[in-house]
C-alpha cells in the first residue's frame, strides 16, 4: 500500500546469511520486545547491530538507503548509537565496538513509570533532516504502546545541538497541532521537548516511538473520520527508498 514490496525477515535468517541487507532497499526495525527486553528495551538487539551486523549495516546506512525504527526498533537504533548517529569521528569510535559514553540520548522509563497504550498526534518537525517527511501535509495520528519511550538527553547542550542540527523528526502535539509542552497525556511519556522521533544527520535513519503501522485504514481511527493516516509516513519513506 505504501509502494514497496516488503518481506518479513527474521534476524536469525540474516545471521545465517539466508538474506543479506544489501538485497533490500529499505530496512524497517519493527516494534515488539526483542529478546524480551530482559536487559532493557532494545539493548540486546542493539548489541547484534553493533557487533554481528556492524559492517553490513554500516554499509547499508552509508549508501543512503532508509532505515526506519518503530518503538523497539527506535530503542534499538538509539542503544546501538545509530541514532542520532553523529559524525564520522563517533562512528569510528563505535566501530571499535561498544564503549562507555558513546550515547548522549536515551529512551528511558516513562515518566509515569508504567507501560501505556494510547493514541497520540504527531507533527513532523518542519526543518527536519529527514527531508522525505517534510512532504507530509498533515499530522499523523497513531498509538503509542511502550514502557520505555521517554526520550531524554544527557544535558541541555545535547538537546540544543539536536535542535540546531535539525535531527528532531517528530514531536507530540495536540489535535490542532500545538506542541504538547510536556502536558500529559498529549505527551504520553514525559519526553524532553515533546520529542517522539529523531533522525541521523544524513536524514536516512529515522526512529519514532508511536506505531504508524496501526493506522493504515481510516476504519482503525478511534475518532472516526479520514486522514492523518500513519500510512502516509511509510509512503514518504518508501518514496525516498525508490528515488
Amino acid at each position, binding site marked *: 500500500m505504501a509502494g514497496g514490496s516488503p518481506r518479513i525477515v527474521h534476524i536469525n535468517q540474516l545471521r545465517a546469511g539466508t538474506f543479506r541487507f544489501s538485497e533490500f532497499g529499505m530496512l524497517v526495525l519493527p516494534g515488539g520486545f526483542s529478546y524480551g527486553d530482559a536487559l532493557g528495551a532494545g539493548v*540486546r538487539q542493539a548489541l547484534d547491530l553493533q557487533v554481528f551486523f556492524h559492517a553490513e549495516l554500516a554499509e547499508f546506512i552509508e549508501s543512503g538507503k532508509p532505515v526506519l525504527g518503530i518503538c523497539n526498533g527506535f530503542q534499538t537504533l538509539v542503544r546501538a548509537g545509530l541514532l542520532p548517529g553523529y559524525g564520522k569521528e563517533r562512528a569510528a569510535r563505535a566501530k571499535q565496538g561498544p564503549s*562507555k559514553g558513546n550515547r548522549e540520548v536515551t529512551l528511558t522509563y516513562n515518566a509515569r513509570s508504567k507501560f501505556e497504550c494510547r493514541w497520540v498526534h504527531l507533527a513532523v518537525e518542519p526543518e527536519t533532516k529527514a527531508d522525505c517527511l517534510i512532504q507530509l501535509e498533515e499530522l499523523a495520528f497513531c498509538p503509542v504502546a511502550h514502557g520505555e519511550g521517554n526520550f531524554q538527553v544527557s544535558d541541555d547542550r545535547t538537546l540544543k545541538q539536536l535542535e540546531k542540527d535539525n535531527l528532531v523528526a517528530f514531536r507530540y502535539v495536540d489535535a490542532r497541532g500545538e506542541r504538547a509542552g510536556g502536558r500529559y497525556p498529549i505527551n504520553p511519556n514525559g519526553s524532553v521537548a515533546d520529542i517522539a522521533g529523531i533522525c541521523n544527520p544524513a536524514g536516512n535513519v529515522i526512529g519514532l516511538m508511536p506505531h504508524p503501522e496501526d493506522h493504515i485504514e481510516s476504519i*482503525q481511527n478511534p475518532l472516526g473520520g479520514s486522514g492523518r493516516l500513519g500510512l502516509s509516513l511509510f509512503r514518504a519513506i518508501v518514496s525516498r527508498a525508490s528515488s
Partner: protein
Amino acid sequence: MTVFRIEVAAKDRTGDPRIVAAAHRLGVDKLQSCRKSRLYFLTDHNRSALYPEQIERLCAALLVDPVMETVLISSQLENGPSDTVSQPDTATGEHVIEVALRPGVTDVAARVLEQGAAELGIPGLQAATATQFRLSGVLSESELRRLARGLLCNETVESYSLGPIEPPFGRSSDARNYVEQIPLAGLDEAALSQCSNERMLSLDVREMKEIQSYFEEIGRAPTDVELETLAQTWSEHCVHKTFKARIEFTRYGPDGRSYPTEEIQGLLHTYIQAATEKVKRSWVKSAFVDDAGIIEYDDKYDLAFKVETHNHPSALEPFGGANTGIGGVVRDIIAVSARPIACTDVLCFGPQNFPQEALPAGVLHPARVEDGVVAGIGDYGNKLGLPTVNGAVIYDGGYLGNPLVFCGAVGLLPKGSHPTVPQKGDRVVVLGGRTGRDGIHGATFSSAELTQATHMESGSAVQIGDPITEKGLIELVENARDARLYSAITDCGAGGLSSAVGEMGEELGADVELMDVPLKYPGLTPWEIWLSEAQERMVLAVPPANLERLQALADLWEVEMRDLGRFSGDGWLRVRYDGRPVAELPMKFLHEGLPLPHREAQYHEGRADRKSQPTEKEHGGTSLSERAVLLQMLSHPSVASKERIVRTYDHEVRGGTLVRPFVGPHMDGPADAAVLKPLGTWDSGRAFSLSVGINPLLGKRDSYSMAVSAVDEAFRNAVAVGADPDRIALLDNFCWGNPTIPDRLGALVRTCQGCYDAAVAYNAPFISGKDSLYNEFDGQPIPGTLLISAIGIVPDMRRVCTSNFKRPGNHIYLLGETCGELGGSLLSLLLGWEGGEAPVMPDEPLARYRALHTAMLSGLIQSCHDLSEGGLAVALAEMCFGGRLGATVDLPAIRGDKFAPSYVQLFCETNGRHLVEVGPGDAAQFEACVSAVPYARIGEVLPSEQVIFTKGQERLFKLTLSEIATAWKGDSKDDASN
C-alpha cells in the same frame, strides 16, 4: 572463583514515591525514600579469570544506560572477603535490602546476559540478577523485615537479605536417579489418607483404595512416578471429577419446603454439553473436545477461544501467577494449531483499601495482588505482541484470601488445519523451555484449598513466565502446521509431560525416556521431570520422516526440541529413566480407573420479601438521594473507570482493534465489548466481538439468576457493538468453593441449570469452559462466581457501534421493559438491603436482539450501551461522559411498572435492556425495526454539560459532566500519585 558484582543505579536520586506510599500503608511511616537499583553478578563457568575490562565492556553494551544511570563494580572471591574495585560516591547511611529470585526460578535477564556476553566474545559467563533497595529513614531491623516481607520480596519465589545478598547462582546438585517404591499393600484408610496428604497428591480415600487394589492385583508396589502420574491424571484440575460426578440435588423454596430430589448424571453432560447439542449450531467446529473451543469465522478461517483461571498461583505470587496464566491460555490456543491474536482478562480482588491490620496471616494485601496481577498480565501479553482488549475487574471482600484471575485468548486458524490424531510410530517431541523443579504439583495444588500455611509450602507450584520463548513457539508451531509436520499437538500445562503425553497417548500408549528431557539444572528425580509444570512447552506427535524439517524450523526460531520416544500402539504408558522403566501403567486404568464420586447438593432459595421493597416511609420520605446514590455508584470500584489498569495493556498491536476498551472523543468512555479484525482477513468486512458477563453480587442472592443474567450480559454487550445475535458462542468459567460441601455444590448446580436454560433460550452454544474449585481461604469460600465470555461474529465492521453519545438533538430510546428487580443489585449493596426479586431471563431475548441488530446493520443506531450494574442511571451517565454531551430523560416514559418509585426505575438491573441513540430523521424507520420489542423513547441528547432526570413536569435531579468525571474517573490511582 571471582564473582563480579555490578550495581546499576539511577542518577536521579529521588527514588520511588510509590514504594514509600505503600510502606506507609504497611505502617512503616518513618521510611522517607527508597531508591531501587539493579544488581548483576557475573562469574566464569570455566573457572578462568574474567577481566575487569571485559566487565566494563559488558556494562557499556548491555547493563548501563549512561544517560540515566551510574554503575558500581566490585569483585569478590566466592565466599571470600569483598574486594572493592570502585567506591560508592558517598557513604549515604541508607539501609539496604537486596532481593533475588530463588535458585531455579526462571531468570530471563541472566540468560540473555549470558548470550550477549558470548556475542561480545566472553563465552562461558555465568550470570545472576537481583534488586537492591536503598532506604532512608530511621528504621529498626523489624521494620526492615516487615518492608521486605510485606512489600519488596515475595518469599514464594524470592529471598532477601538485609545488606549484600549472596550471589544467587543456581546451585547444581548431582543427578538423582532415585525412584521410590511406595508400599500401599495393607494400609488402612487412615494410612492411605496420610500418604496422600504427605505427598500432596490431593487424592481421597476412595481413589487411594482404587490404586491400592490395582497394585495389589498385579502384585507390586507403585513407584513414586506411577503414584504421581495417577494423582495428576485424576486431579480435579485435570479430570474435572465434580463436573462428571453423580449428584443428588435437593432444592428448597424460600418457605423451606423442598422440591423433589433430582439425580444429575454429571453437570457437564447434563447442562453444558447438553445445551450445545440442543442448539445445534452448524458453525460450531469444536466444543469441549480440544484445548479450546472453535467456531467458524468465514469460509477460510476459524476462530478458537479459551478462558482459563490461575487463581491459586496468583494468590501466592501475583505477578508470576497472572503471567503464567496468560502463558497457559495462549498455549491452549497454540494447541489447536491456531495463531493467537488477542487476550482477555477478568479479575476479582479484595477491596483495595482493606485495612492492613485486619489482613489475615498468609494473605497478600489486595492492592499488592492487583499491582502484581496487572503487571503480570501486561508483561506477558505485551511481550507476545497480543492485544489485551476486553475484560472486567470486580472488587468484593469475598476475594480477599483467594483472588480470581481469568485469562482468555483467541486464535485464528485456517479451516481444516488442526490435526488431532497421533499415529502409531509417531515420535513424542517436546518443544520449548527447559524443565526445572518449578511448578511441581500445580495440578494437585490447584485442587486443594488455600490456608495460611500454603504460602510457605507451595513455593514450587508457582512460577515466572518467559514470554519470548513462548513467542518462538507460536511462530514455530504456525510454520510446522502450515508444512503439516505433526499429527497431533497439545500443551504442557498442569501435570506437565505426564498430562500431555498421557492424554495424547490415551489410545495408542507411549514409551518415553526422561533422560532426554532438557533440564534447566541437574538434580531432578524422575518423577519431578515427569510432573514438572515448567512453562512454555508443547508436546507434538511427529512422524519420524518429518523430524528433520521440524528441527530446521526449531533452529530458526531458537526453540529447543527433543525427541523423547514414541507412541507405541500397545496401550501402555511406559516411562523410562536411562532405559530402566520407572512407570508402567495401562492407559485404560490411568484414564478410566478413577472412581467417579457421588456428591450431595442442596440449594436454599433466598426470600424475596425480606426488606426487599423499602417503603418511602422507611427511608424517611425523600431521604434517599438518588443523585448521591448515582455518584456513589459511579465511583464504586467495580463500576468506576479501570483506565489505570487497562492502559498498561497494549490493546492496539496487530492493528485490528476496531472497538477499543475506551471510546468517545476523549477516548475514555467505557466500551461494552471489543471488536477485532484479524490480520490477514482485511479483504472482507467481517470482524468479531469479545464480551463478558459476570455478576457475583447477584450470585449471592440467587445462583440461577446469576447464570441467566451473565449470559444475557455477555450477549447484550456483544450485540451492542454490532455482533450478530445468531452467531454468538459462549464460554463458561466456574470459580467455586469446596464442592464436597452440599450447599456450595447446590449453588453450582443451580448456576449450571441457569446456564442451560439461557443457552437454549438464546440459541447460543457453549464451546469451551473450565471450572476452578476449592477456592476457599481458611474454610471461607469465595462468592460462587460464573464468568460467561462471548465471541460473536460482526458481519459488517463499518457498522460497529460505541457507547458514547454522538450528536445533540438525537433521540434516546430504552429497549426492553423495566421490571424493578433490586435483588443482588448494586443499589441493594450500597444501601445494605437484603432480599429483593432477582432479575429473570427477558422474554424472547433473541427476538429483541435480532431487531436491534437489524437496526444497527441498517445504520440507524448512532450509539448503544447495555444496562448492567447501576441500571439506567449509570448507563446514561456513562454515555454522556463518553460523548461529552448532556441528556435529558423522563422516567414515566419507561416501559414497565408505571407506579414504581423513581429509584427503582433508575437503578434496577432488569436484563435485556439497551439504551440507544437514534437521529430524529431515522426515528420512524428505527421504530418500525423494533416494533416487536418493548421500547420507549425516553429522552434526548443535549449540547450542554447537564444530565437531567425528570418525572413528567417534575425535575428529579441533574448532574454535570464534570461531576460524573470526578466520580467515575477521578479517583484513579494515577491521579492520586501524580
